[in-house]
């Protein structure tokens, strides 16, 4: 009987954590390149049991045109690779700029990888040409000179991806593939919007609070039953 109370109380605890996840999705409704977290109770394992493995929804976000030649969005699967504090990190936020020493960097100063290493514009900018054209395969062309290609990778298992802040993702086991050409395209002058759908999140929020209330009721009933049990023997 007492165990029942604990089970219900665990339910309360988990629902609250789920609400935190929903709250974070809603707060990031307008964050470029944000990928929504799926609340963990939505998951079922192979035995059709609720599982606590959390996943990230990597569905494509909408594209906004920004007309800025250093804004990029990936249409399709794959991630940009940047040099994070702990090695390579992945991101879908293609809002880049050029650092003091000529590297292509993200908003937070992380250098962006090309197929031949970090992309550096240093030599090219000093020439009398500063229009950067990036074609749909990611080839960076300055004037008529192909500098490098923006590196796009695809982790072989998206379940290994963890989020770090600044819209970057970590790979807990570092294996990734190179996606086939044609399975993605890089759009210059575009940014990918957050893929949070407010209606979906509202639905999750209702589900969480109703579940919370049911667990709450169960505890109340168990409490009442225990009270009855305590009265047995009283004459």
């Amino acid at each position, binding site marked *: 009987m007492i165990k029942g109370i604990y089970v219900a109380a665990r339910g309360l605890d988990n629902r609250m954590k789920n609400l935190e996840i929903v709250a*974070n999705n809603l707060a990031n409704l307008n964050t470029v390149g944000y990928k929504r977290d799926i609340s963990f109770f939505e998951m079922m394992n192979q035995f059709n*049991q609720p599982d606590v493995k959390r996943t990230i929804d990597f569905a494509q976000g909408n594209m906004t045109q920004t007309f800025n030649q250093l804004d990029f969005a990936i249409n399709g699967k794959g991630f940009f690779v940047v040099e994070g504090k702990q090695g390579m990190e992945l991101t879908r936020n293609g809002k880049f700029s050029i650092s003091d020493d000529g590297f292509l960097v993200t908003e937070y100063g992380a250098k962006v990888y090309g197929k031949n290493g970090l992309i550096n514009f240093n030599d090219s900018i000093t020439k009398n040409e500063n229009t950067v054209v990036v074609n749909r395969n990611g080839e960076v062309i300055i004037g008529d000179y192909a500098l490098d290609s923006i590196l796009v990778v695809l982790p072989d298992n998206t379940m290994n991806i963890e989020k770090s802040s600044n819209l970057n993702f970590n790979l807990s086991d570092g294996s990734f593939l190179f996606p086939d050409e044609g399975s993605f395209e890089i759009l210059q002058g575009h940014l990918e919007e957050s893929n949070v759908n407010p209606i979906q999140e509202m639905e999750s929020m209702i589900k969480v609070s109703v579940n919370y209330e049911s667990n709450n009721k169960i505890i109340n009933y168990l409490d009442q039953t225990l009270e009855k049990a305590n009265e047995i023997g009283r004459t």
Partner: protein
Amino acid sequence: MPTRALRTAASGMYAQQVNIEVISNNIANVNTTSFKKNKAEFKDLMYQKVNVNPLSNSTPGIFDSEGIHVQVGNGVQAISTQKIIRQGDLTPTNNQFDIAIQGEGYFQIRKPDGSFLYTRDGSFKVNSDGTLITASGYALDPDITLRDDIAGIFISRDGEVEVTDISGSSYVLANIQLARFINPAGLQAIGDNLYMETKASGQPLLGTPGTNGFGEVHQGFLESSNVDIVEEMIAMITAQRAYEINSKTVKTVEDMMQLANNLKR
């Protein structure tokens, strides 16, 4: 207490408030010459690993189970605004000192201390020395100084300034130069339609209008603001609804906390 969800929702509301501020600034500048609209930008805050209690756990008591965790984010932060560098419409003014840029590029403006600023606002005036200056009083660089005997001024699309004097003879006085940046969205707006070079914008590249990707200059025109009211209205509705939905999170958390408080009869 489960205040993380509350703080997350509050961060979302605050970010949307910043968003509304940016949108209202755009709308206020709907008639500002050469104004480029801004867009607020956000980033997600750090993620924490939180242990969860799987329901299949048969141990009595509420324990944080080892190794089973989910990542929970801490909300959002407004970090910067981005200029949307999109061409504004050219409006005819029939004023010979009004010059608009169609395409990429900025006029280079010299401050009295010798440093440079950049602008697309080509509503030039002539000061007492005959030098072309912007509305804020800074000189166009390189200088274009008109002598007293100038009767007419004609500026071609490639920036050649041809003047006619009283006697009727005409000659080329100067050439207007434009400056381009690899990342014009990285320029810092300092007010008065002026921009400053930053690390993000890169070094300016000077050139002749109409060549090498530089825009053309049009005499007698001004570039209008690139703010589109309909677009801003849509953005405003979106921001307001996003604000509202974050407040719904606050309400839900509050209801849940109230239920928790009423657990004990």
